[in-house]
């Protein structure tokens, strides 16, 4: 298996996007990580099929989608969050979503800048992964439950901000 540097860089770059996609499809962090590993293995095995300059992300998403389907077949029903019916309704249709997601990431930076320092710090702590939820609650002098509610509200606030900006862009 001879991997080119470009392939490795593309694969590294797409990791978080793939994880986001898989987490959305499986609604379970551990399962998403497991399928991400399988997807990575398949991508590496098929590295020769990849033509530099083509859309690596789209190719990786397609492979990830197949891996989700294969993974679901190997799992007992009780382990999976979504029923087959809901899974079919939710995915994949990632082509349109992928470009919207790129736009969302771009608008997110602007919306984050508009937040208060305190709220921004809370999101940083949550997403940088350096602090456990216990520690965040301790640092802000609150309960874990209250922190989760606050984080949820902040996401809703960001969602509103991003939606407004995307509407302005005509997306």
């Amino acid at each position, binding site marked *: *298996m*001879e*991997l080119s*540097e470009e392939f*490795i*860089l593309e*694969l*590294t*770059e797409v*990791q*978080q*996007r793939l*994880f*986001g*996609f898989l*987490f*959305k499809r499986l*609604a379970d*962090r*551990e399962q998403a*990580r*497991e399928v*991400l*590993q399988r997807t*990575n*293995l398949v991508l*590496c095995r098929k590295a020769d099929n990849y033509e530099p300059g083509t859309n690596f992300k789209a190719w990786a998403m397609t492979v990830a989608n197949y891996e989700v389907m294969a993974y679901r077949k190997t799992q007992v029903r009780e382990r999976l*969050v*979504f*029923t087959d019916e*809901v899974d079919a*309704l*939710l995915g994949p249709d990632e082509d349109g*979503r992928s470009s*919207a*997601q790129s736009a*969302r*990431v771009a608008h*997110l*930076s602007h919306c*984050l800048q508009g937040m208060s320092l305190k709220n921004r710090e809370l*999101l*940083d702590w*949550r*997403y*940088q*992964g*350096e602090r*456990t939820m216990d*520690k965040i609650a301790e640092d802000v002098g609150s309960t874990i439950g209250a922190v*989760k*509610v606050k*984080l*949820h509200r902040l*996401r*809703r606030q*960001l*969602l509103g901000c*991003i*939606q407004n900006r995307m509407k302005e862009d005509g997306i």
Partner: protein
Amino acid sequence: MKEEEKLWKDELDALLGKLVDDGLTVADKARLNEILQTEPGAREFYHEYLDLHGALEERLGVPNFSPLNAVIDPETKEESKPTPIPFGGWGWAVAAAVAIGLFIQFSGQQPEAKPELPIAQITKLSGPLLWTGNGGQVNRNLQAGSKLFGGTIEGMAPDAWFELEFNDGSQVVIAGNSMLTISDLGQKELRLREGSFSANVMPQPKGKPMLVRTRSALFEVMGTRFSVDAELSSSTLTVNEGKVRATRLSDGSTVEVTARHRVVAALDCELIPEEMPDSVTLWQSHLENGRKRNYGEWMPAHGAEPPHLKTVPLTLSAKDDRKQRTIHTLSMPVSQGDHPPVVLQPETKIRVRGKIASNHRIWFGMTLRRENGDFAGRFQTILPAEEFKSGEPFEVVLNLSDYHLDPSLAQWAESLPKAPYDLIVQNVWCHTLWDPAGLQVSEIELMIPTEE
């Protein structure tokens, strides 16, 4: 909004919050399925919310590349739930370099020269570490549970920590910037190239003591708990339990060092074991004495500028990480060499004097050990950028109660102390992340304020 619509929207709202931050119960999963199946609007909102969560992870999170391990290290790919390298914060970025670096290195290659049986296993680790195995294979992708076949472990930064266990249960720990070679071809042999390590050694086979070599000494260990600290021209052996034979290489002189004693093997002093000195509670850096064992770029006094230590970068190359992120760190040894152990008291305060070129968040931390030499964690506190003025000297006095266990050690928190009290300070360190903030420190002091 109709009553029914409001109901599922509120429910979905709560479920998505739980999904992202918590996890769903069986009942939650059933209800989520129900809502998503019947409400097209719910599916749309599900996508939007989860996409935002993904975007926040992309934008704010430090990427976790451990799922790449399976395609990098064949030994880890069969694990159903691989243990992520417990690096916190910037450690993940190091893992990125690790992942890509190994990817390049191992693609198209299979290890060939490994002995049949591993001699030890990694039990705990954290921070930037580099393992060079037999045949020169470099591996930064170390994980707890990885088998070792002999080679050299190197702690790349002050907050590196590594514990291994030989097949007979003997344990070896390095913390901080240290380099230790291990081998076991029927007789265990360690070579401490620099830094320090501690060990808890099970009784060894008769006539085959564990050998510990440094530049200036040879220690023969039959079964005991001890630590070794190596400098350029001297080595300090501290024995906590049992007995160790120490030989000074320059003249072949030998002594036996018993429990709670230590000996310094150096040319300029007698090779005589002495009782371990009583611990102290105060300590002050003395950068005017030169670079010594400090980790950083030492600068002598110049004009009004006192001698100081500048951070040194640990940079990921552009090839390995497009963001080219860099950790800027410095550290000073405290209870090392022949210095008496410095023990933290609840009322201990940490004074740091220095300067920063551009104001930036600063991490202030300490690596601690227990009285028996065991690693006791890294504790740190973070001061926001607003506390510092660009280009101006600063002096901060930190309370020990503000120091918390480094989150990257959360995985091992059960076995580590919850608070830094009554522990021995191995070293103190400061760092900034990513941006070159130009941090320099001229003095660190551990003090106990006297009551007026």
